């Protein structure tokens, strides 16, 4: 393992440690963050109560009795071991999407910003190859990379009070899915009929860190057939 691959280990608070792999968003850094996260979720470190992966870092939070220096040492050890292990397999997940058709309220806005017509937007969005960099922020929320930059559209100046679960949107250079209904300022272009997050099974996420995603355009009839009871 090359020396310049050694991450930084930084105290974030008296109960948390940040392991930082770089200062940018890239596939290469993501692979290292993913491999390390997968390792520490499988090989749990005693007294670590939570693990927060992100684009280029992993935050560890500790219980009230843990010795900060001892856990710092154990985290470094974990990284050394994980650096020798294989990258976990990436899953391939297909997400059916009904574009527009009552769910793409902001299709016209995206069209105005990008200069593309509706079918070009759908074609471009559906044609991309996407990656879940991590889940975080709120329950089941996937940070998705890989959208064609030509689809970039600024967020709404006034967020909507309620966006339904499963809505597909565009926020600046990113695309994403709302796992739960929530307020939001994204440009809405479609809706998936499948449950991204299920309260009855919260640990079994439909989209997980490291997944490759393909959006598949479906018809209203297919949407109605696939519709799951999303709460």
């Amino acid at each position: 393992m090359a020396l310049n691959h050694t991450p930084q280990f930084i105290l974030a608070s008296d109960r948390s440690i940040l392991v930082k792999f770089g200062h940018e968003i890239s596939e290469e850094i993501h692979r290292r963050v993913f491999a390390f996260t997968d390792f520490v979720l499988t090989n749990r470190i005693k007294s670590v109560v939570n693990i927060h992966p992100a684009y280029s870092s992993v935050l560890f939070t500790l219980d009230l009795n843990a010795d900060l220096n001892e856990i710092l040492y154990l985290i470094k050890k974990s990284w050394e071991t994980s650096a020798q292990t294989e990258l976990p397999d990436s899953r391939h997940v297909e997400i059916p999407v009904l574009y527009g058709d009552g769910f793409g309220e902001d299709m016209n806005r995206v069209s105005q910003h990008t200069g593309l017509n509706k079918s070009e937007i759908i074609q471009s969005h559906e044609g991309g190859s996407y990656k879940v960099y991590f889940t975080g922020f709120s329950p089941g929320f996937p940070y998705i990379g890989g959208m064609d930059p030509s689809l970039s559209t600024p967020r709404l100046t006034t967020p909507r009070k309620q966006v339904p679960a499963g809505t597909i949107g565009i926020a600046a250079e990113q695309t994403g899915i709302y796992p739960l209904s929530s307020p939001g300022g994204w440009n809405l272009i479609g809706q998936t009929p499948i449950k991204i997050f299920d309260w009855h099974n919260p640990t079994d996420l439909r989209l997980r860190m490291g997944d490759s995603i393909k959006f598949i355009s479906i018809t209203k009839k297919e949407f109605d057939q696939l519709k799951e009871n999303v709460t």
Partner: protein
Amino acid sequence: MSLEILRAGLQTTIQDLGRFGVAHLGISASGASDNLAMRIGNLIVGNPENTTAIEMTLTGDKVLFHSNAFIALAGSKFKIDLDEKPFPFWSGTYISAGQVLTIGPTLKGARCYLCVRGGLQVKKIINSASTHLTSRMGGLNGSILKKGDRIAFGNLDKVIQPINNMENYPYTDTTTIRVTKGLQWDWFDNQNRKLFFQKAYQVSTLSNRMGLRLSGESILSSKANEIITEGMPLGAIQIPGNGQPILSFVEHQTTGGYPKLANVISADLYKVGQLKSGDNFKFQLIDFPEAEKARLEQENYILSLKAHCI
């Protein structure tokens, strides 16, 4: 054995010490806002520290006990009576079936805890009964308690010896909150750091269990207003573009994109749970060894209470 809410408080929730191990799924721990008060309250009635209890905010509830119970109130003092007679805080007290405990507005801090010997019987999700209001998860249907809610208690078989007379409960001085340097400390120049510690901040009305929005001196980053999204520690003090700090609390988002200037030390997080809108306080910078010392002192204090329980 059960109790019933006859009149709901302002924001009453079922809590324990939090739901852990799922931050990588986007679910933060939640749990008691004043974790110290809940731990002590549970010890007073002879429960393990992490036993499910009731958190009341600003105004408490009117509670009817359908069965005999042994209870304690912990945290900030609220106006309280049992069948119109005075009722103590920080003291294990027997209640008879049919008695009504009326908890009114706070007399000082934001929160108090009702701990019942044997614990509340609430379905656990991922090993915790804690309500996560923002995510509508845990507790009773992920919601605040409402009039007519009935909660069973006393099913716990691992109760320990209660502390009958507790003389020195912790005094909560919320005028100073101690912090260590945050992950983006270097993004702020000396002038802005000085401003941050110089004057008091006021807790704004837009504060909740997810975070406290503070108003006071505007702090400017000398680098940028956004970072590459990274994990968010409990107690992180984030500085958004408008310069008004946001203190991440128990229902915080698991990751965030604002630079973090400082972080509340773990031994002072319970004080944050007692802050209410309109309160003024100052931040004080300490180093990591001092924070470690403060944590150990607090844990030793809990251990000394436990020593009485055996």
